[in-house]
């Protein structure tokens, strides 16, 4: 049906526009506090294999006492984000480029949307519904 083709074209167009937009200016703002924490813990994973508040010289205590006093292992929040940051840092020789560090997180967000679109398609939701959800969802990212 022509209408459905139009909607599918719009869906793909929106995915392209917002998909490109998501990455276009990803590195154009410096890290702020919470992002810096993720980078610091990512760097410590490269150094010790686990997130640590101590890098051998400095102790970064974002939430007081939430670390092991013997090995400085920290558990302030779930671990996946720190290992994701560590992977990005590893691929960039340990240099904390905001674009490189944020890239995998943006990729995960985009994957979530793509997965939702695929599932909606499998559930036979008409594309015009998906188009409008795309607009709504991407605005949050």
């Amino acid at each position, binding site marked *: 049906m022509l209408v459905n083709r139009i909607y599918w074209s719009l869906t793909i167009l929106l995915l392209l526009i917002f998909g490109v937009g998501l990455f276009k*200016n990803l590195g154009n703002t410096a890290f702020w*506090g919470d992002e*810096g924490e993720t980078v610091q813990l990512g760097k410590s994973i490269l150094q010790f294999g686990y997130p640590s508040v101590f890098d051998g010289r400095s102790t970064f205590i974002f939430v007081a006492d*939430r670390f092991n006093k013997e090995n400085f292992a920290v*558990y302030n929040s*779930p671990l996946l984000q720190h290992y994701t940051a560590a992977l990005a840092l590893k691929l960039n020789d340990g240099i904390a480029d905001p674009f490189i560090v944020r890239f995998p997180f943006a990729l995960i967000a985009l994957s979530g949307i793509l997965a939702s679109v695929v599932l909606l398609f499998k559930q036979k939701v008409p594309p015009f519904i998906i188009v409008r959800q795309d607009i709504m969802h991407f605005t949050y990212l």
Partner: protein
Amino acid sequence: MTIGFIYSYFNLTKRINQILFLVFGFLLYNAFYPGFFAIYLSLSIHVIVRVILFKQKNIFAPFLICSLLLGFLLLPVFIYTNEISILFDEQGQNTAYLQNMIGFFYDLNYHAYLKISYLSLSIILLVTLVKYKFNISKFLLFKTIPNNHRLYPAVISLGRHNPRYVSLLFPVGFFLVSYFWNVMISQFSRLNKNTILFQFLSIPVFLSLIFLSHPDYYSQLKLYKEELSSTFIGPVDGIVNTITETPYGRANPYVSARPKLLITTNVESEAIYAYLGSQFLDRESFGIYKYGTRKPDWIIPRHYEGQFGIYDYLTSSGDYEKIVTNYCDTEFQQFYSVKIHYFKTVTDCPDRKLVLYKLKKL
């Protein structure tokens, strides 16, 4: 991850979905374990109902095996976190595990998200039970989930809470909103056999609902467009550039490393560390370091929560050169206020200039 985990459960008899169940379960636990436990508990109840009430015994073995495998994969993570939890117990605090769990649910409960969702789902369940006498065949299908959570879109769009705390729920919300909208349109279409007309008529309704829930929605689109074509400069750039003697602009992580410096600051030391890699004394550790012999090479008192004067006894000693920069010491890097797509380079700040103190060379 959430959708993938639930979807794989509903198709668990297939090998590929068993693998996906393990992958998504592992990732979801490590990304957001309160969500993982809540969903896993729901799935466990679902399995029990399927086995006992619907005699679907073929689902039990794959669910049990996958759960055991998932538990085995998650065991090292649990031991790691539990060791730290034990330490907290010894210090007389609640475990980190529990604290985090409470923390996440506190965020979700902000502006009554949990209360409203609980009430909504209770009403839906009650109405469904009374009116339809619990349609058992629908209970077993993945696609009934949106139908059973039809007020979810209303719940997620309520309040003005910072969306980053509930952003993990957005893919679920995206899926549910789309599905429910489709169900609603199809109901109207069935009556009049004119699907396209109702599709078009629904567009202004949909846009109105978005506007009612998020009055800032359209202005955010404009800000997003601006965000894509602008460069934002904030206090972290100012600090890094001043220390590395670089002109006004964005900090460059490829040339900013200064590992030999000792720096003390009261906020965002991790963000500055990401660029400089120096030795840092943050506000917590400075209390211990004051007995040290080496003076910090740089002191950066930030205005954050009125803390600007906390290093006065050091900076007034005569050992430091005061540097007033052209950057503004905003509360957060680039965020003039923590909102979506609300980045701003603040340039007019007579009372909040970014100030650094540099140790004079003897």
